[in-house]
């Protein structure tokens, strides 16, 4: 699994990015708004100043000399305004402008922005050009101020998202998590359906209903499939029995030739194999369906000895030497029939896949059960316990022996391992 993100984190990321974009674009918008308000207000202010100047100067009713002196003085002490005689037409329209200029009075070397108004005014019947300039906030300063504020709100938003997210993920997703916990605990083998908690959230309710449907369907398919194996095996028993019996009758015919007898015998052998495969499939289905009780206490040492006794003649037949190291009275809990099958299968394999005059070694102790036999080359471990995987070129055998062994181990929660070492196959079972 790569890096996994929680669903809410994913939406949180999108929300955050969206908020960032919206807030970022709001910065220039705010700037233009603030700036234009600034300028409009200043223009108004400048106009008021200009109107007042015109009115006040006219009210004074100064003489020309007095006026000229006043204008010189005015221009000296009223920075930001300027009054000059002009030849411009009196009816000229006012002009407004913005100018950047060094402020000679400021301690720091700074360029300030000014908003100006130049208007032709009439004093005592003469035209004068009045310029009024007012300091206005610089563009950068406005932008920076707005940006800082915006960023501050952005941070508040994100922190808010995070907190909400954490609370929501706990609360909102609770039903989902409940469903998930139940799903994780679900085991198809147990074939018991799950009941989900009802949720008043539509999506989760839908999910639960869909899951319920799916699980019920799965269980029923699984059941059908298992029953199919079991039923198919059952149904095969009768025709197999008929074939077998007819062969037995055919064998009694007096006109039979040696060749015909041999053919019957070959059919018989094949038939025995089919029957065995059939029985083994049934057995596998039954183990998987937990149709075997597993609470008997079994003396494994005795059971192994009995199996060895049962196969004694087959050991002798292949001139195999048996080396046993079996701890006395080793008890385990399990199903006797299954464990008998387990040991028989492993022993039979040890006999069948052994070389003439080979060795079979059986050891049983607390470390586990080891069954080893001589062999030429290691078996492929990957598919060793799979059904119908043949591990040798011998044609006999059902191809289910090791699959059954593995299933029996699983049933009892034991582990089985295979290894090949010094020309010896070893199967090891840990209890």
């Amino acid at each position: 699994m790569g890096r996994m993100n929680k669903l809410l984190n994913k939406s949180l990321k999108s929300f955050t990015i969206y908020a960032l974009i919206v807030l970022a674009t709001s910065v220039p918008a705010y700037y233009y708004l603030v700036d234009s308000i600034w300028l409009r207000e200043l223009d108004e202010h400048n106009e008021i100043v200009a109107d007042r100047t015109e009115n006040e100067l006219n009210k004074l009713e100064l003489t020309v000399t007095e006026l000229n002196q006043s204008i010189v003085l005015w221009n000296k002490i009223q920075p930001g305004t300027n009054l000059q005689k002009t030849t411009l037409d009196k009816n000229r329209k006012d002009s407004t402008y913005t100018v950047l200029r060094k402020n000679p009075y400021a301690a720091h070397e700074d360029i300030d922005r000014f908003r100006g108004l130049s208007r032709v005014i009439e004093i005592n019947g003469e035209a004068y050009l009045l310029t009024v300039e007012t300091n206005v906030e610089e563009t950068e300063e406005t932008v920076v101020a707005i940006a800082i504020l915006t960023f501050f709100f952005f941070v508040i938003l994100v922190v808010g998202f995070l907190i909400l997210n954490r609370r929501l993920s706990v609360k909102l997703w609770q039903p989902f998590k409940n469903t998930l916990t139940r799903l994780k605990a679900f085991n198809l083998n147990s074939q018991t359906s799950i009941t989900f908690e009802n949720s008043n959230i539509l999506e989760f309710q839908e999910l639960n209903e869909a899951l319920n449907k799916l699980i019920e369907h799965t269980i029923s398919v699984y059941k059908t499939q298992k029953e199919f194996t079991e039923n198919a095996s059952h149904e095969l028993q009768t025709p197999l029995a008929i074939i077998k019996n007819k062969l037995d009758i055919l064998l009694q015919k007096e006109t039979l030739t040696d060749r015909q007898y041999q053919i019957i015998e070959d059919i018989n052998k094949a038939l025995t194999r089919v029957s065995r495969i059939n029985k083994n499939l049934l057995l596998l289905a039954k183990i998987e369906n937990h149709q075997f009780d597993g609470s008997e206490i079994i003396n494994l040492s005795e059971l192994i000895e009995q199996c060895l006794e049962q196969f004694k003649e087959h050991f002798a037949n292949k001139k195999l030497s048996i080396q046993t190291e079996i701890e006395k009275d080793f008890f385990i809990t399990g199903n006797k029939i299954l464990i008998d099958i387990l040991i028989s299968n492993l022993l039979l394999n040890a006999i069948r896949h052994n070389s003439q005059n080979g060795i079979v070694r059986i050891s049983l102790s607390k470390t586990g059960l080891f069954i080893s036999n001589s062999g030429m080359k290691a078996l492929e471990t990957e598919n060793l316990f799979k059904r119908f995987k043949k591990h040798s070129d011998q044609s006999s055998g059902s191809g289910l022996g090791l699959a059954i062994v593995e299933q029996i181990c699983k049933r009892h929660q034991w582990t089985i391992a295979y290894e090949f070492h010094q020309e010896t196959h070893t199967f090891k079972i840990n209890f």
Partner: protein
Amino acid sequence: MKILIIEDENELADSISEYLSEENYLCEFARTYNQALEKIESFHYDCILLDIMLPDGNGMNILEELKRQDKQDGVIIISAKNALDDKIKGLQIGADDYLTKPFHLSELAARIYSVIRRKQFGNSNTVRQNELEIDLLAKTISVHNHPVILTKKEFDLLLYFVGNKNRVISKSTLAEHLSGDFADMLDNHDFVYAHIKNLKKKLSEAGCESYLKTVYGTGYKWEG
């Protein structure tokens, strides 16, 4: 000897009857649960072959019915189920033996033979064939009244042959009988030959006629 075959599968019932009727067995059939109930109520049989899976009822109930009526008929359950609890239950209710399909007719015949002998001859259950005497209870034999020591498997084989007199029994059938489920897993069936050779040798050394004949190279037949 009267045998009742309770089996819904006609082919199977016919084969069983054909094989058995060559011996002096008289076979009757019941194809359904109800037919079977009627028959067991009205007649006595030496042995009943009971398929427990019948279309109209469970064969186990027939077994219970037999017990309720205190009938002494021998019963062999033949079933497609290899279920162990069925087997145990059947034997507990009173069946004498249990055989799983598919089986060899010779196996069935040998078991019928044993069941009937056990039911009818009780404590002095011995079979005689001229100089050969088999004590089924003590599992011993004697030839000309001299005991011959047989291994368990040899005795088992001898009984199997006696239960299938004048029938051809193939080597693979004997291998299945001797090694149970595992016959097909064994690469060769030479162990059958070894047991038979020993049995023949012991019998002939004790002065027994050679009733056991080899036919078709690897088949056997007990003549008697």
